[in-house]
């Protein structure tokens, strides 16, 4: 899929909700972090929301970078590598307890496992399986509506 700016944002939000949400719910109890389960869930879902909200800004930056590419495409590997800057920023904000509604600082290890798992799952689904239910998606620059 070669994205348009609206398609980027829609796809990110949709996949974080549909893939990232259930995956977060599943792996939260398994993360190496202390604290009551409710606080753990609050923390992981705040982080997930951070990927979504900050991601809108990131997508605008990616769209701008894409303008320098003749093909106006976004290679597969870029979708994977962008987890590095996004992970560093979000990990720092979560680790320093700077995200709203966070019950406390998020340990780096737990953040890396959660963020990395969600990112790779979302990226993998976006590489192909997404096209199965949504047959118009790839021709509409990633837009769903």
């Amino acid at each position, binding site marked *: *899929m*070669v*994205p*348009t*700016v609206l*398609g980027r944002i829609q796809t990110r939000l949709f996949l974080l909700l549909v893939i990232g949400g259930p995956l977060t719910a599943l792996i939260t109890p398994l993360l190496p972090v202390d604290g009551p389960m409710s606080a753990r869930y609050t923390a992981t879902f705040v982080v997930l929301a951070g990927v979504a909200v900050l991601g809108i800004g990131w997508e605008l930056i990616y769209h701008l970078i894409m*303008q*320098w590419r*003749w*093909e*106006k*495409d976004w*290679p*597969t*590997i870029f979708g*994977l590598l962008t987890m590095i800057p996004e992970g560093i920023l979000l990990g720092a904000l979560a680790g320093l307890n700077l995200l709203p509604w966070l019950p406390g600082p998020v340990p780096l290890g737990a953040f890396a496992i959660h963020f990395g798992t969600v990112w790779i799952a979302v990226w993998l689904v976006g590489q*192909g*399986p997404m*096209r*199965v*239910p*949504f*047959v*118009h998606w*790839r*021709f*509409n*620059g990633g837009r769903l509506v």
Partner: protein
Amino acid sequence: MEPLTGVTNMIDVAPPLTVLPPELEQADWWTDEMVFRAGIPMYDVPFVSVGGGMGSFVTVDYLRVAGGVPASDIRVLSNLSHPWQTYEYLTRVSQLPRSRRIRSDSSSRPDNLWGFPSYAIQEAVRDRTVKPVKQVLLEPVFADFYTPLLGMVLDSMRREAQRIRYWDMLVQGEVRTVRRRAGGGYFAVQAPRPNQPNAPASGLIAYRCRDVHVAVGYTGLRFLPDLQRFREQHNDYHHVVNGYEDHEHVYESLRRRPGTVLIRGSGIVTSAVLQRLICDRLHHGAQTRIVQIIRTYVKGAHGRHAWSRRPGSHGFAYQGFNYPKSAWGGQLKARMRRREGADRVQMYDEIGGTTTPLRRLWQHHLQNGRREGWYTAYSGKLDSLGLASNGQVKATLHSPEGDRRLRADYVIDCTGLDADVAEHRVLGDLLHHGGARRNPLGRLDVEPSFELRGSASGMGRVYVTGAASFGGYFPGVDTFLGLQISAQEVVDDIARRNLCRRMGPLRSTVEWLKWARNRQI
């Protein structure tokens, strides 16, 4: 005397018509009575696809799978016995046998509406290797674009054709005309080949249908005037050939004795021909000297803005596929859809032009050729082609550096498939009698839904996809993925008219599962 019953019978039963009577030939609109009076048998079928090549296959596949239309409601009228017949011929003669990789994306699958799993995954599973998947992961920055093997593409199409009962829908024969029917719909008239299992009668047959889809491909080869002149003056079709013609004799001759070949062009066919010549040098001892003539010589990155520069070097403009990738679904597709008239032509100019993929192997070979002196590329135009006394072709090259006399044993013209649409019988007929008109680039003017403008007939529509619709709101019409996008637009439009089903996420998944299990529909 016994009555001549046999003769009487012969007189009573009129022989089947093979040409259209003048009354029908000249009329823009036909009534049922006119067809009946002419003695042409009439058969009803809701949807007819004229062409029977890749465009028909992809559209009919979409209509069967996504539209849920039964095979009995569709007829494909074609000279071809299978949809990839012309495509396979053209790829073979232009030096892409089944074992080579075509210039197409991993997920551009004519046999699969979803493009999933991609060819790379299929190849990885089949050959038990992660190499194709790794290439897709790293393309195009750290590796060449992954492209599928021609053989795999054709085998997958055969499987899908069987699955959708393609051959139950096919009637082989020559299509004579498509005319609007008074009262709505169309007549598609065909002269079926003898002994056709799906043809209801012999002689001319009129299919009375609601919608007609036309995808007849390229109308012919483009021969530059000087090449055409040479061939006609010398009656020589041996020394000067088109890259899309069978020209195996050139390679065979050059393998037997050293020679020089002039190649004209800088696109994908040029690259394939170069690869063949270089391969013959490397593996079969050929001593061929290659001289390439490039009319628009690209020295480096080019384009109007810093954010719109296409890479290029040594005469070639580099691009993974026929158009920038975003033309098939990204921002370029979205932008083009909003452009009209001269604005659209300007955008076609910006993204169009002759290009070839930047493949590391090709770069390596050409670099060797330049260094060792057996490959040279010149900028300029060839002129004054003639035959020298020793049987070689002589020509003058007009270049910015001045004129240069060249001699070669063979000239291979790789400048393309690009004839006028009116040269095709059915397309010309639609322009003269069907209400169709030309778009700003001279092909047929279609709506974003690929409905042929001006040709509506009551509740009926004509849809044109493929090369004939080039110049419309979507640029990549003559590509695998482009045919699929066009098919989606056509079937969506038919669904909007409530004449077939629209495929939502659930049914799409169910249909994909049927595809995955190769369940016939």
